[in-house]
């Protein structure tokens, strides 16, 4: 079956603009995760969804970042007034449910470059 897909694969934007990143999880996966991977850094956990609910938003770097998930499926991560330090690869993953035992399946990522 289809894996996790993300769009766009690459996004170049100007400082101050808003961007929207999209994630399509594997069908039937109720948990969805957003991560950020900066050059030379590990993965930084941003937020997760169980269904449409995001119980823990404390990983979001600032109030310019927001995420939503509708219908228990597609999720969008929105970054308002982008800054150069937002440049990174944004990864989405999904799993059957939010549990430590469940393997997370990752999408290919969206490479964001803020000029």
């Amino acid at each position, binding site marked *: 079956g289809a*894996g*996790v897909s993300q769009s766009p694969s690459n996004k170049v934007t100007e400082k101050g603009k808003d961007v929207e990143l999209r994630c399509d999880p594997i069908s039937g996966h109720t948990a969805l*995760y957003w*991560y950020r991977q900066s050059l030379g*850094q*590990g*993965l*930084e*956990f941003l937020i997760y969804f169980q269904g449409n609910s995001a*119980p*823990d938003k404390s*990983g979001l770097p600032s109030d310019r970042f927001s995420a939503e998930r509708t219908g228990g499926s597609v999720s969008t991560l929105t970054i308002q007034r982008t800054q150069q330090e937002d440049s990174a690869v944004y*990864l989405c*993953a999904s799993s059957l449910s*939010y549990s*430590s*035992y469940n*393997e*997370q399946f*990752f*999408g*290919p*990522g969206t490479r964001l470059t803020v000029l």
Partner: protein
Amino acid sequence: AQSVTQLDSHVSVSEGTPVLLRCNYSSSYSPSLFWYVQHPNKGLQLLLKYTSAATLVKGINGFEAEFKKSETSFHLTKPSAHMSDAAEYFCVVSDLGNAGNNRKLIWGLGTSLAVNP
């Protein structure tokens, strides 16, 4: 608070020799531990996971890891490296201490494995 330390940022081995990628963790409770691999221009893939069953965990591509509670370690090993093993490897810990919405996966910074012919 839980944390993960990958002791080597870069490891270089010759093809056919053993691989050892080191990971130490800190966790207040019984952790779940994972190793993920990221090949160039490919997505992250689960190699193996420890979830309080057998302490020696076997994964894909001949990799295995041993959970040592006394040493708080979860080192990744492979007896004989292959060229295709060259990739970035991440050690991950999930703390089960706080149920519900406070559980997070904490990722190490990664170890870049180079395999020389």
